[in-house]
Every structure is written in structure tokens, then in C-alpha cells.
């Protein structure tokens, strides 16, 4: 197992006061809190920080940790000395207020497994009949699957205590029917698929928070779908009928003469379906593409336009 440098994690000196440590924790916690930060590693950083603070804020644990000496480097292979905590007394309890996943092996080898970790904060009390914990997880769903509905085969990592009392992640495969019209942030519930009940209590539920995977063609905002629709200058100027891809298949769209770049044309009801509500719309956002002047003929056409059309797009700039 790797040595962890808790002072480095918190960015404080080894002789930092308790006030310094608390200040550093609060500052970094605001920065890396998974509800606040969008950084991919926010959760890992926040967990590390919580663990470091758990040790350094507590005079007993900090003294014990300091006793290991200062010659260790973060990531170095570590084995606690057999009698490493001799002479240090623990008052016990008081670990963990976060109710999140467990601490590192390094932490557990020094301070034991922190009790009372269950999500939702239920103590696992002896033989008391108790409901199992709810589990929460996130799943990525493609836009097509959200539009059509689909049965997805998921692999979840379920936190579990092994025979030695360590928190481990057990892979679990299951198939879930994704309903038609789920949107990002929606939490679907699988009743009774959470943690097992204790002493005959009912099982907890499994909640899956849905996230729509970014799509190469479509952008989604709520239940509305946007697509960038390139058109030619003559389609824009003269109007015409073009085909637009939608999640439900291609549809014809009439472009009226004099269309502009950035103009949004609405295809009513072609967005994402939502149970109990009117479906979203699709918007085609026009983008006028200029053909390259890559042949003598094309060049001649542009030159003809230049000489025959009195068009000044910069008139309003006084130019």
C-alpha cells in the first residue's frame, strides 16, 4: 500500500496550527466538492482531502500520523511498523461525518475501518431488523436510446464490506429498461435493488441518475433538440426545400427566401418526448456555407456577382 502525505494533500506545513488546517480544508473542500466542481477528478480529490482532514484535525490521529516520521514520500510503498501506535490512545468514534465511500487502505491500516459509513447514515445495529441502504449511481444514455427507449446492459460497481470488513467494490451486471423520453438529471428508481436488508428487513432501492451522452449531430437543451443545418447561399436567397435529420427520421423543411445565418427554424414536437407533457421541439439553426472558388467557372460566377450586385454587408459599420 502507498504512503499518503496528508500535509501535501491539504497544502499545509507539518507545523500548521489547527486553525490553518481547518481553513485549508474549508477552502479546498469548496473547490473540490463534487456538487460544486465539474473537474473529472473532483470526487477523488475531495475524498483524499476528507481523509487527510480526518487525520489532521484530530490531535490524537495527527500525533499518531506524525509519529511515522517525515521521511516518507507520497506514493512510497508503506507498511506500518508492528507497534506503530503504541502509547497513542484513541477516544474512538467521531470518525466520518460524510457518509460517503470508505477511506484508503493506508488510512485503514493506521486507524482501522471507520464505522457507520452506510449511505444514508443508518447505523448497522446488531440484530435490529432494518431496511437496506439505497444505492445511487449515474448512467450514460445515448440520445437515440433516450428518444426511443431501450434496454441497456449496465455494469455497476457496488460498494460492499468483505469478510475482513474492508469496503470493496463488487461489479454487478443488470439490464434496465430505459423509458422513452428520459432527460439529463432524471433519477430513475429500481425498487428493492439497493443494499440487502438487515435481519429480514426490506432491501433498499437503486437510483440511477441519467446523463445524456454528447451527440455528434444534435445538441440538447432540456427536451429541445438543436441541429446545425448548413445551407447554400442560393437556398438562403431563393428559398427551397431541404431535408433535416431528426431523432425520428428525416423530415422536409421549407426555407423561405431571404433566410439568414443563425436563423432558427422550429420543427414542432420533434424534440424529446416527455411523459405527461407535450414533447420538445427540434430547432434547425441555419448556417449559410460559401462554396469555394476552386474552379475557373466558380471564380467567374463570384466575379459576376461582385460586379453586378450592389451588396455591402458592412454598410452599418460605415465602411
Amino acid at each position, binding site marked *: 500500500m502507498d504512503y499518503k502525505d496528508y500535509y501535501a494533500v491539504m497544502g499545509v506545513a507539518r507545523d500548521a496550527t489547527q486553525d490553518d488546517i481547518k481553513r485549508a480544508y*474549508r477552502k479546498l*473542500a*469548496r473547490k473540490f*466538492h*463534487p*456538487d*460544486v466542481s*465539474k473537474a473529472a477528478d473532483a470526487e477523488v480529490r*475531495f475524498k483524499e482531502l*476528507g481523509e487527510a482532514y480526518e487525520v489532521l484535525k484530530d490531535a490524537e490521529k495527527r500525533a499518531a500520523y506524525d509519529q511515522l516520521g517525515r521521511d516518507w514520500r507520497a506514493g512510497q510503498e508503506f507498511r506500518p511498523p508492528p507497534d506503530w501506535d503504541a502509547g497513542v490512545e484513541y477516544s474512538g468514534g467521531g470518525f466520518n*461525518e*460524510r*457518509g460517503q465511500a470508505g477511506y484508503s487502505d493506508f488510512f485503514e491500516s493506521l486507524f482501522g475501518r471507520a464505522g457507520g459509513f452506510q*449511505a*444514508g*447514515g*443508518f447505523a448497522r445495529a446488531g440484530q435490529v431488523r432494518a*431496511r437496506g441502504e*439505497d444505492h*445511487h449511481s449515474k448512467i450514460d444514455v445515448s440520445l437515440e436510446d433516450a428518444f426511443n427507449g431501450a*434496454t441497456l*446492459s449496465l455494469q455497476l460497481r457496488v460498494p460492499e464490506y468483505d469478510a475482513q470488513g474492508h469496503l470493496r467494490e463488487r461489479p454487478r*451486471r*443488470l*439490464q*434496465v*429498461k*430505459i*423509458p422513452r423520453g*428520459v432527460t439529463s*438529471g*432524471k*433519477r*430513475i*428508481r*429500481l*425498487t428493492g*435493488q439497493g443494499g440487502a436488508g438487515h435481519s429480514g428487513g426490506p432491501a433498499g432501492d437503486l*437510483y*440511477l*441518475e441519467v446523463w445524456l451522452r454528447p451527440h455528434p449531430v444534435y*445538441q440538447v*437543451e432540456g427536451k429541445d433538440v*438543436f441541429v*446545425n443545418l*448548413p445551407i447554400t447561399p442560393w437556398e438562403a436567397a431563393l428559398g427551397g426545400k431541404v431535408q433535416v435529420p431528426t431523432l425520428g427520421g428525416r423530415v422536409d423543411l421549407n426555407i423561405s427566401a431571404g433566410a439568414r445565418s*443563425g436563423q432558427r427554424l422550429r420543427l414542432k414536437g420533434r424534440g424529446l418526448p416527455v*411523459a*405527461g407533457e407535450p414533447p420538445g421541439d427540434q430547432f434547425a*439553426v441555419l*448556417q449559410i456555407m460559401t462554396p469555394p472558388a476552386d474552379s475557373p467557372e466558380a471564380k467567374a460566377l463570384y466575379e459576376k456577382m461582385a460586379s453586378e450586385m450592389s451588396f455591402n454587408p458592412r454598410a452599418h459599420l460605415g465602411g
Partner: protein
Amino acid sequence: MVGSEQSYQPDIEYRFTLAEISRCCGVTDEEILLLVAEGVLNPCEPTGHEWQFDSGDLSRAMSALRLERDLGINPAGAALAIELLDEIQRLRDRVHLLEALVFQR
């Protein structure tokens, strides 16, 4: 192995009573009531029935309670943080949408 996997039909539209959402979040009813008072949670109250919270309320409650616990802020602070985070998310999504539409290809 696909054949051996069980297939599950999830609940989409579900509601919680005050007691249920409190249990789900692992807190007392009082802590949930504080979040209702701050407007973080908006239970609907069908006439003659008790409050009903939806899945959006569950997400916001869990987020607010984590912020309270981890950052040492009170429910009013958590409410402000949640509102600002929602607003930032909306703006980020908008920027992302506009960038994708304007700068594509």
C-alpha cells in the same frame, strides 16, 4: 452472459412523503423541513393529502445536505449555493449549445 442478467423496469414518476425523503437522505424530518422553508425543495400538496416530493427534490436535498455537512454551511447557505450552481449549469449548457451551433465545422 446476457441471458443470465435479470431485466428491470424502473419507476419513472415516483413521489416521496416527508418521512420517505427524510429516510432516503438519512436525516430527520426537521432537516428536510428547513430545506422546504428555504425553498430548496418544493413539495406539492394535493388537497387533503400530505406533502409529495419528486425525484428532483431528492436530488436537490441530497446535494444541499452534502454541502451543509461538508462545507459547514447552514440551510440558507446551501440554498444559495444550489441556486447559483443551477444557474452556472444553465449558463454552461447555453454556452456549450451556442458554441456547438456557431463553431461547428
